[in-house]
């Protein structure tokens, strides 16, 4: 008898009922949480409730990561590495493995995730369900492109191996499928080999939106990683002023020239934490305007080949634990959309004007150019064009009014909103944004006819009914 081996009747099927939310802390709802530690108890937990949703580390922003109508299964303890081939970089692991765990183990060995979201506290299962993208989408596509295969625990209890050749329809429905096709239990992906854990970064400032788009379009192909940070509160001639941060993996010679002592330096351990909820008044248009102004000037106006460790480059906010508490008790929403390139200039200008005129205190707005998305999932967010992500403190109706106006801009431009960030969109808009929704629904109805896998987001947006 092994330690902690539960009686199947009891442990594994014993929920903790609690109020949960996504990273934005808005909205929140009560759900029965299960937290299996072995594959057998995962299967037990799935059988304990009528409807189920797997949850990784809860870093999606809105209501995508819980199921208040039934059970929410925490996947964080199913985090075992199962196989690694150091020749090919192929890593096979359980879906509860996080990017942080991969970085901890594999950066010192010269491997890096092929695509990483802006926080390392994301599980692979969550990354696949949201088909996340990173700063390299214009070159490497989204996360699912680098997934060789995965196992899906389906509604009938079977575990199906899915790849581009085996169950290809389930592969395309699960990548970006927001956890509504089943529970991903295992993911096999290819890590990227790298000489150093540093990035050689070029910084440049763009005076306004037009300048930023021009610079992104002109030279993005020269960089593996590219992103622009936009000051959403700048107005008039400066509307859309940004800092472009673009770079390539630094070679061993570059880190040597920069006197980097440990070219494959891994993660740093100590982290600051936000110890309590900030008062609602902390983030107002004045404080954020001041912050944005400082941030804009913090980076060099024009600098080439700065050698930057991967951690601040990819995960600037991970150094501050629980930073979502800065937005206070009411929480915040992140709004991210993509619009096709030909409509981008006008749509982004409209969107930025709306945000700027509303005086909504948004910092950390991020602009990025997406590349080809042909291999992505049916509901994957990325498509060719430009994407903008902005954080807004949730202020109830005022915020919703602004977001509806933004929805209109996005729809008119033929764009779409990112489910992983969404907390409030109306369901009428989904079909127009995601033309493959009907095909996805067909696959989903076949694999889960009774609708056992469900989330608050899925019900709100009517993805699967």
């Amino acid at each position: 008898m092994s330690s902690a081996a539960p009686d199947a009747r009891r442990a594994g099927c014993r929920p903790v009922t609690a109020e949960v939310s996504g990273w934005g802390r808005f909205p929140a709802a009560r759900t029965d949480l299960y937290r299996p530690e072995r594959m057998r108890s995962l299967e037990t937990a799935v059988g304990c409730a009528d409807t189920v949703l797997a949850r990784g580390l809860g870093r999606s922003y809105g209501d995508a990561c819980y199921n208040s109508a039934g059970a929410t299964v925490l996947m964080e303890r199913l985090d075992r590495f199962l196989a690694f081939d150091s020749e090919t970089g192929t890593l096979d692991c359980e879906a509860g493995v996080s990017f942080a765990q991969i970085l901890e183990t594999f950066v010192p060995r010269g491997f890096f995730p092929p695509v990483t979201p802006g926080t390392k506290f994301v599980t692979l299962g969550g990354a696949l369900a949201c088909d996340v993208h990173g700063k390299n989408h214009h070159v490497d596509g989204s996360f699912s492109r680098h997934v060789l295969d995965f196992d899906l625990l389906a509604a009938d209890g079977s575990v199906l191996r899915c790849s581009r050749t085996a169950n290809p329809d389930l592969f395309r429905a699960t990548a970006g499928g927001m956890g509504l096709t089943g529970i991903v239990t295992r993911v096999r992906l290819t890590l990227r080999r790298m000489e150093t854990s540093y990035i050689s970064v070029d910084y440049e400032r763009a005076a306004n939106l037009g300048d930023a788009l021009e610079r992104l379009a002109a030279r993005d192909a020269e960089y593996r990683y590219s992103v622009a940070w936009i000051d959403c509160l700048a107005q008039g001639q400066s509307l859309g002023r940004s800092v472009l941060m673009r770079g390539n993996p630094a070679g061993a010679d570059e880190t040597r020239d920069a006197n980097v002592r440990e070219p494959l330096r891994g993660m740093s351990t100590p982290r600051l934490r936000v110890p309590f909820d900030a008062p609602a008044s902390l983030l107002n248009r004045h404080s954020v305007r001041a912050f944005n102004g400082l941030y804009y000037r913090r980076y060099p106006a024009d600098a080439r080949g700065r050698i930057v460790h991967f951690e601040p480059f990819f995960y600037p906010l991970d150094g501050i634990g629980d930073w979502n508490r800065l937005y206070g008790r009411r929480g915040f929403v992140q709004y991210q959309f993509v619009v096709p390139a030909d409509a981008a200039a006008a749509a982004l200008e409209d969107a930025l004007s709306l945000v700027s005129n509303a005086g909504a205190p948004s910092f950390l707005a991020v602009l990025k150019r997406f590349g080809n998305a042909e291999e992505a999932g049916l509901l994957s967010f990325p498509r060719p064009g430009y994407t903008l992500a902005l954080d807004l403190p949730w202020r109830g109706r005022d915020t919703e009014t602004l977001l509806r106006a933004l929805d209109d801009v996005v729809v008119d431009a033929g764009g779409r909103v990112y489910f992983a960030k969404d907390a409030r969109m109306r369901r009428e808009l989904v079909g127009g944004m995601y033309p493959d929704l009907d095909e996805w629904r067909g696959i989903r109805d076949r694999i889960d006819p009774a609708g056992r896998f469900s989330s608050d987001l899925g019900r709100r947006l009517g993805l699967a009914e």
Partner: protein
Amino acid sequence: MRAAVGGSWVVVLGATSPIARAVAGELAARGHSLLLAGRDTGELERIAADLSIRHGGDVATVAYDARDAGAARKLLAAVEARAAGGLEGVVAAVGMLGDAERAATDPVYAAEMIQANFTGVVAAVTGLANLLAARRAGFIIGVASVAGDRGRQSNYAYGAAKGGFALWLQGLRNRMWHVGVRVLTVKPGFVDTEMTYGLPGMFLVAHPKRVGVAIARALDQGRDVIYVPGFWRPIMWVIRAIPERLFRRLRL
């Protein structure tokens, strides 16, 4: 403990528990090879693969159920085949919290609880201790529980088994001291695992990783008995000090 030489084996009994996994990770990081013994062989394979990828080194598995009569003998044979001559340590982390209400009324189940948590483990560790004694070196880590510090009406079959195991470890420690084998008794409080998840009345729960790190540190420091987290020592001192006439009324 200093970095061990390659090939020095540690046998981990009850290796699928989160505490065992955490201790095993610490030992693997110190250079030990591991033989993971447990009931759920599928889980053992997963944990073995994980430890091997994270820390390098040899990690092997063997099926072991403390409730089986012949389990200790079979385990010993497997250890001698795998790790003969190179056995450096034993981690006994077997534990079955089970169903306390059933153990209070079902004679067969009550005996099973004692077998899983005490007599079965004692049989296995006795055989392994002989190997270490013959080498005149090594260590034994026994995971008991704060539940073994006092018989409580809510959970006394488990508590008695763990308390008995702690007493047995104490005797073993004194005997093994003469032959240079160290014995560390670990008394965890509530640990945040599947075994306790969703149970009412849990408080001050510790993350299993934290428990694993504390155990490895105690081994490095040559401690005899540790409570993890350490605040359980004064708590249990108070609980032991409560007069029986009062204690029975508390329904603990």
